[in-house]
């Protein structure tokens, strides 16, 4: 993938709009210059005391036209620039989404988590600043510069050369030096700042331990020392920009003197009218001032590179296109089975996350899966969902490989620990399970998960925005909304991936009861961390390092396994 692709591709795609913005930008500067030129001309001309006011009528009109024109063009220029950039934003978002989408299940991808993706979303917005604050103004300046030099050369080649060199200091040398000087410092500053961030976050998260240790003054001292260092860098940066600004002003002043001198000389030679001296001096001042902000914009370049790098990284990690499954299980919705035959999985031959699991689950069976973290529970689930492919052995849903099934979401539903509730209305969130569900259907599932009363009490009922309700919905209620979604999705198999972690025992119990009641008849694979509710399961199985170490019905295990009895005692200590 081309390195600059995130930038260049859009310039090519929208080249016409870019040209338009550049023309508008150039015109804005030219009109401002024209205003000062005609003003200077006007009063000089007037100073020659012409016979009648009609003699200066044209410059008078010119002054007003340029004055108003500049304001109008500057307004239109800003709008067209932003409109362009917003078009690019849409394109970039679609592109980022398409890259991120296949990685959602890719366990090894760094871009799986919402936080990381949120960061990329702001990277895109940051890149837009590149167009607005660096790219467009620079190109406009270069055009104005070129025009100016050609125009000077029209009168005098040596003057044009001197002018090209001096203004070149403003436009090329200054920005280049800024870039070089700022780059290293900005990077160090950023490192320091990130360091401070990490350090402070670490401390704030572990604040109780710091308080108990009674030595937090140590942290404050250390922290301030690092801060001093970043101040030092900022002071250096300030000194540099100050120096650059002063030098720029010298160039500006020098250029004005030079122009006035040159115009004086031309007048003396009789090549131009004396009334043009003021016009040239004043208008040059205006043009040159428009070049001053370029250096600041250019020294921001490394910051854009960071954003660019992250966006490119996610494109590199994009997994190869998987073939889209096309098959459909031929069995009836009501009799979907899951068969695993010596199913193994590992990212590399050395690490076996699942080891020869053989298991068969019939439609309507309820299976609880227990195991420590890292025992292979979630690997097993992802194999069933087809987002991972077995290293050996196989898993089949009614005889088909999950990754070959047309839309696995029609067959397997998932309720996980933290189902995401989107920032839209309650009804839209529930409807995600079945986009064409009628309001009656939504209300029906709302009733089934015992949310009807709570939702009825919201300010706008089902139409209430999630954000407003975010505070109001407790952990258990959020799970119920997600459950309603699953009910609408109406799949023969439902995976419950620790949906009750973090809930207090009574809430957990009620939620379990609701889940079991509403999901009856469906195959349930329930990953759980303890044994509350396992009595209701047909089968309980324990995974350890990728193999099944205990399995059987609850009563069976209670009778035969001493270990199981001890574990069960933790959940039901007094019965």
């Amino acid at each position, binding site marked *: 993938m081309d390195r600059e692709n995130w930038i260049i591709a859009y310039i090519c795609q929208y080249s016409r709009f870019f040209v338009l913005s550049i023309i508008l930008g150039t015109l804005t500067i030219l009109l401002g210059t024209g205003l000062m030129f005609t003003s200077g001309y006007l009063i000089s001309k*007037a100073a020659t005391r012409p016979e009648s006011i009609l003699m*200066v009528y044209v410059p008078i009109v010119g002054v007003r036209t340029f004055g108003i024109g500049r304001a109008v063009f500057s307004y239109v220029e800003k709008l067209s620039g932003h409109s362009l950039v917003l078009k690019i934003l849409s394109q970039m978002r679609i592109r980022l989404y398409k890259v991120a989408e296949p990685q959602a*299940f890719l366990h090894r991808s760094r871009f799986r988590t919402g936080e990381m993706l949120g960061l990329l979303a702001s990277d895109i917005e940051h890149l837009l600043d590149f167009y607005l604050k660096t790219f467009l103004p620079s190109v406009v300046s270069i055009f104005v510069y070129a025009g100016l030099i050609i125009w000077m050369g029209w009168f005098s080649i040596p003057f044009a050369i001197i002018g090209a060199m001096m203004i070149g200091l403003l436009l090329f040398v200054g920005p280049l030096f800024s870039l070089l000087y700022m780059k290293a410092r900005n990077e160090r500053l950023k490192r320091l700042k990130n360091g401070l961030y990490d350090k402070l976050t670490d401390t704030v998260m572990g604040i*109780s331990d710091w308080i108990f240790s009674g030595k937090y003054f140590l942290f404050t001292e250390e922290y301030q020392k690092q801060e001093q260092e970043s101040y030092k860098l900022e002071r250096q940066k300030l000194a540099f920009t100050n120096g650059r600004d002063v030098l720029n002003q010298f160039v500006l002043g020098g250029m004005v003197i030079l122009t006035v001198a040159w115009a004086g000389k031309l007048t003396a030679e009789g090549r131009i009218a004396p009334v043009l001296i*003021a016009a040239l001096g004043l208008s040059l001042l205006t043009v040159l001032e428009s070049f001053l902000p370029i250096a600041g914009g250019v020294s921001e370049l490394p910051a854009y590179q960071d954003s660019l790098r992250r966006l490119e990284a996610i494109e590199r990690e994009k997994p190869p296109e998987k073939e889209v499954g096309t098959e459909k299980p031929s069995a009836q919705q009501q009799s979907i089975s899951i068969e695993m035959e010596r199913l193994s999985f590992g990212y590399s031959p050395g690490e076996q996350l699942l080891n020869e699991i053989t298991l068969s689950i019939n439609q309507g069976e309820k299976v609880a899966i227990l195991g*420590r973290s890292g025992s292979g529970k979630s690997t097993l689930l992802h194999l069933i969902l087809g987002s991972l492919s077995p290293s050996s052995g196989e898993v089949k849903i009614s005889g088909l490989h999950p990754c070959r099934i047309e839309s696995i979401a029609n067959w397997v539903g998932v309720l996980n620990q933290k189902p995401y509730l989107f*920032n839209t209305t309650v009804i839209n969130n529930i409807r995600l399970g079945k986009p064409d569900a009628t309001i009656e259907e939504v209300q029906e599932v709302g009733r089934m998960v015992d949310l009807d009363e709570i939702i009825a009490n919201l300010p706008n009922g089902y139409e209430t925005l999630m954000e407003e309700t975010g505070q109001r919905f407790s952990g258990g209620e959020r799970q119920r909304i997600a459950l309603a979604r699953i009910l609408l999705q109406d799949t023969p198999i439902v995976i419950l991936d620790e949906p009750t972690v973090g809930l207090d025992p009574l809430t957990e119990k009620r939620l379990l009861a609701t889940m079991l009641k509403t999901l009856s008849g469906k195959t349930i694979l329930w990953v759980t961390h303890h044994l509350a509710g396992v009595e209701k399961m047909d089968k309980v199985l324990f995974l350890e390092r990728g193999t099944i170490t205990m399995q059987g019905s609850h009563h069976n295990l209670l009778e035969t396994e001493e270990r199981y009895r001890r574990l069960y005692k933790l959940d039901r200590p007094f019965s």
Partner: protein
Amino acid sequence: MDKALFKVKGIRAVLAKLAALTVIQASMIMTQAFYLAAAISSLFGGDSFHRTARELAIFFLALTIRQGAAVWKKHIAFHFAAYASETLHAALLEKLFRLGPRFVKKEGSGQTVTLVIEGITKYRHYLELSLVKLLNMALIPMAIMIFILSLNARSAVILTLALPLLVIFMILLGLAAKTKADRQYESYHLLSNHFVDSLRGLETLKYLGLAKSHVNKIAYVSEQYRKATLASLKIAFLSSFALDFFTMLSIATVAVFLGLDLINGDMYLHPALTILILAPEFFVPIRELGSDYHATLDGRNAGKKIMELLERETFQELDTLVPVWDSSTNFTIKGLSVQYDDYATALEDIELNVTGAKTIGIIGASGAGKSTLIDVLSGFLKQESGNIQINQQRVETLAAKSWQRQLSYIPQHPYIFHDTVLNNIRFYHPDAQANEVYEAARYAGLLDVIESLPEGLATMIGDGGRHLSGGQEQRIALARSFLGKRSIIMLDEPTAHLDIETELELKEKMLDFFKGKLVFLATHRLHWMRDMDEIIVLEHGRIVESGDHEQLLANKSVYYQLVKAQEGEV
């Protein structure tokens, strides 16, 4: 402008210095314009370039001094802002440690860190920029105005009239933009966050089988967003249009009237040209005021938030010497109450009396006040009233360092610092020897884990380091406590989130660890209760029952109900 600005220490001296420099700057702006005009008009009059050398030299010198003054002003403002923010930083950190974990939990650790780092940076930039801008605005236009008045009254009047007109239009348009923005806020907010929201919920979309088709929705919403944004920008940019329009129009008007005066012979070229050069300078400060508008607003808000935080009440940490706890120490609490606030469930009339080693279970429904009680005992929360005594000696507050140094705290999710396993275990005792740490790790059952790590005890863990499971984190906390050898242990729901096998193993370790110590353990998990010497049952912030498991069960009251509810079938 912001009144709070004038409360910052040392600001008067800084303002005086800046004002003096601004006056110099303003006079140089005028000198510069005056001599440039002089040079041009003398050339215009037919003088040779050499005769204008003096004027041009003065022009250049004035330019230099003007820039020098501007740079010096920036320098002063930078140092003042840096000094002010450094002072704030120290105060803010100190405050944070006083406010403690409850505050952090409520505000969110991310928010807190952002406020300390970004908030202060923003406030600093605000100070730095606004001081200079404030003085420029106050002094430069006025100085130029007076000067122009001395040259040509009409021009001065035109510019003076333009200024308030311009300000009024900017305010009107700003208000119009704001009303429009407010009206559309909700839908606008939804549109602008839709993309991030989609990315965050990508996994869920995927589970629902909607991920692929969702791209159409993103395209649609982005287009809506573009339209909505452009519509509001059209109005928002009008205020800078007004600024431009009036600036340009008044310069043009000044130029035209100057031309008329010149034709009539009421005026010479030199003053007219001076006015023309000065006219744009007249508007520069107000343009600067308008730029960085958002940065200024952000900085001001950040400053407000920081001040609010600093003014927040914290209880004074008194260095009362709390006696060192031993097996005969008596710890009594009488009539302790905690008022309800944002952070805590209220507690009322808490009574407690323990002597020596004892394990005390704290139980109750969600929101009954278990965590609040643990936090009061840990000194994170101030009691409203009540009497705390240790060995009959009254203790004002448990926030005393000498009390907290005797405590060890194991929450549900113990924090793992971004550091090595070694340093994490010896956090309370940074000078502990490696063999002592090893012993603690062995005790907590961490040896297997440590052996599996690439660099053993020296492996980095915590955020960005090697990931540990919940059980392993809890073992680190246990090892930390073991090494700390502190005699009072506070636990807040230490095992509820662990898988049951790990929970069983850790429970056995912990029960052994509790021996000879004073232990307070708040939990929902009933299995701990049989191992507690005493159980405190909380309901709505009050102790409704206490005793050991058998007694409480025999009471057939709140505890009995709680057990029954949890033990019942699903």
